[in-house]
């Protein structure tokens, strides 16, 4: 599964994207954030306030409880500031 990070999530994780093998235990987007946060200090910093993070699955906004099975791409990013 492809994961993408934008803005300060990209800076804190140190990567704009990566491909991971989703562990059996991780079912939802929220669980994926927990799992990623446990990786190292940078990821822990990136995901320290998961409630502020927006999630997109296959380029559509989803909530934390979104089930990831069948997902090609998950993106994590801060609230948007376009326009």
């Amino acid at each position, binding site marked *: 599964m492809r994961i993408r990070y934008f803005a300060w999530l990209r800076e804190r994780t140190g990567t704009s994207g990566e491909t991971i093998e989703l562990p059996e235990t991780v079912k939802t987007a929220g669980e994926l954030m927990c799992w990623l946060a446990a990786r190292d200090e940078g990821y822990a910093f990136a995901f320290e306030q998961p409630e502020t993070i927006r999630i997109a699955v296959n380029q559509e906004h989803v909530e934390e409880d979104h089930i990831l099975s069948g997902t090609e791409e998950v993106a994590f990013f801060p609230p948007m500031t*376009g*326009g």
Partner: protein
Amino acid sequence: MSNRTTTGFTVRVQAENFDVLAETEILTKGHKDVGAVVTFTGLCRDEGGTLEALELEHYPGMAEAQISKFARQAVERWPLTGLTIIHRFGKIPPGDNIVLVIATSSHRRAAFEASDFLMDFLKTQAPFWKKEHLREASEGTWVKTRAIDDADAARWHDEKSNNINIP
């Protein structure tokens, strides 16, 4: 819902600047049913001379898809004759263009409301992130969301239609 034919629209996400006049003429030249043209241009402010540049990061693909989704909602909700939305990314110096919305219609209210609506959703729902690079600071700072922008976007839920989906 309605059997009115909905108008097409143009959405572009690009690094290059845009030409408001040329984009306007595409929607007006030879279109004599157009009585009202509303253009919104968002520019990079210099924040009292402190700003070196804004850096606009975006999610390629999703940015175009989200903007197109709002554009589709706008042409379904208002009787527009034309709609163009352009959003830039990359490093943008003060005074430069960032975003353009042009809505044309027979009567003014549709053009005003559609462009106003689209800007509210571009501000809060399109995957762009602004980083401010100040003259006096080595590190850039990510721009925070403003509560007023969410409040502005919420205005469009209360009335008329339910076809707007904010996650």
